[in-house]
């Protein structure tokens, strides 16, 4: 440690007189000031994410009364609450991204195609369609969101946009738990080849629609191409 360095201040008259000590010898911050998304595009992404979370929470709420399996009904309660919290924190980030104080409940679908995917996912209604209901959020939408959130966390500016990273990190942690729960339920429900085929067919149909519209941000194709 150099004896000449004084903290804080740049010029001699700004410097205080205390000597540097070990707390200042922290490892250097190697993060670069660069990120794929500017303020405006990150705000748009947050609105897109919020749209997905809000509608997922609403459709899960609608299904509770139409699902006969009691452990699924009760288990969904927690997923609903944590998905609502996800939408809430995404909304609370919007005013911080120059969207105005009233933007906390602003949700926006990336395009008409993604809104149509949400409609497709929410379609099943009859009580004998628990498999078709659960496949949408737990096999298709949530894994897709986790994938996009993780990519967003990696690609955004690690210092400037750290608040978005923090909130997405927490949402991903909870969604991973939701996915594990939902897929365990689906594994148990799909205990014959015919039922497994129903699950597979539903996954394939919804994945096609999701890829077709470019996913939650509408830019899935471009982002994948850029990565390649």
């Amino acid at each position: 440690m150099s004896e000449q360095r004084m903290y804080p201040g740049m010029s001699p008259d700004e410097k205080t007189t205390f000597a540097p000590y070990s707390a200042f010898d922290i490892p250097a911050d190697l993060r670069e000031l660069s990120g794929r998304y500017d303020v405006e595009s990150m705000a748009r992404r947050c609105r897109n994410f919020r749209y997905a979370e809000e509608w997922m929470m609403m459709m899960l709420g609608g299904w509770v009364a139409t699902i006969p399996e009691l452990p699924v009904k009760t288990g969904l309660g927690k997923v609903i609450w944590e998905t609502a919290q996800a939408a809430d924190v995404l909304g609370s980030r919007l005013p911080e991204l120059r969207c105005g104080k009233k933007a906390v409940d602003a949700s926006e679908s990336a395009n008409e195609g993604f809104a149509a995917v949400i409609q497709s996912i929410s379609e099943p209604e009859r009580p004998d369609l628990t498999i078709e209901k659960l496949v949408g959020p737990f096999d298709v939408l949530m894994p897709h969101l986790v994938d996009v959130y993780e990519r967003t966390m990696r690609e955004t500016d690690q210092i400037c946009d750290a608040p978005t990273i923090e909130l997405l990190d927490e949402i991903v942690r909870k969604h991973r738990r939701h996915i594990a729960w939902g897929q365990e339920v689906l594994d148990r429900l799909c205990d014959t080849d015919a039922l497994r085929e129903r699950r597979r067919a539903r996954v394939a149909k919804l994945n096609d629609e999701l890829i077709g519209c470019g996913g939650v941000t509408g830019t899935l194709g471009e982002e994948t191409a850029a990565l390649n």
Partner: protein
Amino acid sequence: MKRFLHHEELARDSRFIRQDNAQSTVLATMPDDVDTIVNAFEQFTPMIEESVRGTAAEALFEAYGPGFALTILNEPIDPDAPAGLTRLLLRMHGIFVGEVQALEGAARSLWDFPDAPWEFKMNMARQAWDEGRHVQIFEKLLTHLGGAVGMFPESTFLFEAACSDDPAMRVAGVNRALEGLACDVFRDMIKYADKTGDEKMRQAVDYVLADELTHVRFGSEWVREFTKDDPEHLKRTQEYRRSVDKQFSFGGARSDREDAAIPIAWEDRIEAGFTEEELKDLATLSGEGPTKKTLLEAARILRENHLEKRRTKESAATEEARS
């Protein structure tokens, strides 16, 4: 998925047995007249018999006749009373299915009212989680007491009565009337658990009661918000809540009367945001039903008629076998 679900569409697994809601409706609107009550129950006897067949309530029906619910609802739960455990299980099972419907009501509000304010959705989402935990809690308490899911029939009267298509009325019915009733019932269950030294039940129900106070507060706040600047809407909403309160007073079984089986939990309700004025009104309207004396006399006549019918049937069968 469509908006607004009919109570008959509530999905259940194969353990559940559905009961016609007509019986609950009759019970909620009875006058203070023995003959009227006896006639109403006699009329519903085939339906009541059908709904209890194969359930733990069948034994109560056989012993007390179609009016067994009158005895159960109008006597405080007493561990030393005859059939005390069956009656406790019947109440516990009633609470359990009530929690299932409360979960469905809160969760359904998220889908039924997509344009509601975000804070409303957050409150309903939180309530859905709470009610989901309550279902789990009461399923475990049912097992703890030796009971099981589906041992008694389920009436979907709660969902039918409280789940209005109007958001203000929905929260008035579910969050203020029914969650308020839950405060009364749970305070009574805590007293029962204290009396029997059942610490597991006492602590679990105490936590559930704490959640219910929060849900009542949600209701109070959203009724105010949804009816803001619309006194006519507020009046209709309050009338709706009063009608649900009246229906769920079970002819005075839940009231402030001295002979009430479930007293109004005055202090809990004040903490939850009910005003003194509202509680005085509740005490008046819930106490308007038939007296305990009337109900017990009706129950006695119904039991005698039932046993007489059973005796006649039995001797006819013996006669037929002999010939």
